[in-house]
């Protein structure tokens, strides 16, 4: 970006918005928006506290497991659906329904089924992330050049060989795209799960801060969450660019 002929460093727009926040905070318009400097000071004081560390590890654990299941189940199921007409007809309507369904409404049901603990949160996270991963893996497999598959067969590839050496790699750009969106959705899943079940992780922390009007703390934790979600998404986007060299030339 350039302004008045000067080249501005990357992210300089963030500075402007941060400045605006600070100004509004200093004007003391509302208790809801404390100055950014206060928030950041709180952030550093909060980060080391046992409550924060506990929330962080619980969330990381729930998020990690949820994403793991979403990927470990989603990619093979998507690839199978792309390969098998029967499986596709059987599962596709459900995948589409769950993709567009308001999954938040399912969380109470999960709580009844799996209790108020970690299991429900992990399942919520998986449910948020998995559908788009399935759909994208399926789409990736369906656009595979038929002659690549024939080539592998003609050189004696077993179905397992074809799966790991052809289907997975040929669909990888789409799969990674799906994983990126799925992971972003899983961040929502893990937070919504924790908020609704609200006795563990950041959900508990949010509940605690907002009910005690600790807005500085509230914003500090929110900034940490946003930053983490953004970094994960950027990292996956970077992986996606690594395979872009062949994505357009298959």
């Amino acid at each position, binding site marked *: 970006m350039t302004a008045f002929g000067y080249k501005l460093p990357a992210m300089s727009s963030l500075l402007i918005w941060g400045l605006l926040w600070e100004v509004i905070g200093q004007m003391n318009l509302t208790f809801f928006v404390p100055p950014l400097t206060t928030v950041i000071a709180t952030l550093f004081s909060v980060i080391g506290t046992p409550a924060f560390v506990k929330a962080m590890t619980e969330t990381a654990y729930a998020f990690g497991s949820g994403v793991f299941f979403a990927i470990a189940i989603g990619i093979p199921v998507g690839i199978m659906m792309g390969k098998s007409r029967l499986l596709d007809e059987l599962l596709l309507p459900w995948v589409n329904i769950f993709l567009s369904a308001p999954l938040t409404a399912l969380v109470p049901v999960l709580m009844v089924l799996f209790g108020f603990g970690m299991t429900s949160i992990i399942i919520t996270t998986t449910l948020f992330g998995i559908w788009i991963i399935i759909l994208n893996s399926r789409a990736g497999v369906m656009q595979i050049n038929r002659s690549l598959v024939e*080539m*592998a067969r003609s*050189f*004696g590839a077993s179905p397992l060989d074809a799966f790991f050496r052809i289907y997975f790699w*040929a669909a990888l750009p789409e799969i990674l795209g799906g994983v990126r969106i799925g992971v972003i959705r899983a961040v929502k899943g893990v937070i919504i799960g924790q908020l609704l079940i609200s006795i563990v992780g950041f959900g508990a922390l949010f509940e605690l801060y907002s009910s005690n009007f600790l807005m500085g703390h509230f914003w500090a934790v929110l900034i940490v969450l946003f930053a983490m979600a953004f970094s994960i998404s950027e990292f996956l986007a970077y992986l996606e660019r690594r395979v872009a060299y062949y994505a357009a*030339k298959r």
Partner: protein
Amino acid sequence: MSQIKPPHDAAVPVSSPESAVSVRNVSKSYGPVEALKNLSLEFPRGELTSLLGPSGCGKTTLLKIIAGLLPADAGDIEVNGKRVTGPGSDRAFVFQDFALLPWASVIRNVAFGLELRGVAKSEREAIAEKYIGNVGLSGFEKAYPHELSGGMRQRVGLARALAVDSQVLLLDEPFSAVDEQNRRKFQEDLLELVRHENKTFIFVTHSIEEAVYVSDQIAILLPRPSRVSEIIRPTSFRNKDVENIRRDPEYLDIVDEIWASLRTYTE
């Protein structure tokens, strides 16, 4: 003059020992469409046989049946006396659209057939390197397919098929996606290969000139349903220099003759 034999009739005698591939009474339908009907053809060992015909005549179908990629509805395929039930290591396929792995380097692509056969990495890369040299791509081992021209990509496809050292090479319109100058160079190289590799080549093409230029035997297929209408074996120019073939009177005669019999089938 060329020697023109009538097509084989349905009852072909037991395959002669000099046939590497025998196709006997093969039929194939796609739903109501009969692609091949009771087709029989012998492919002599160590020679290049072209399957030539108008589009939709089932030449690629026949090639894929021989490759074991498509099942025949009826009839038998034998390769070196063994009945074909699926893809096998006695045949290697060269694809019209190259079918290279876009995420793999040239050397891994060439070694891919060996990789699937479980050959150790160092060994298969040594073999691949040799064939990369043979097709004139030395120095491009680490390149990726998208960095190569169409002609170079097909050289990779050819090297991959040669690397598995199959007795029979199946080429499905391999030069149709390659530009004209590269195609001519390819055709000359193919003649060299046939002469030195002692393999049986089955070559599908829709170009009359190309078929006559490279073939020891040309099978003309006519469509709907596909059958062998005639088999032409050029005799006089096969051992001449590559530069003189296109001026040879027999070459010109055969090209004209084939055109005369195919022109009624053009759309």
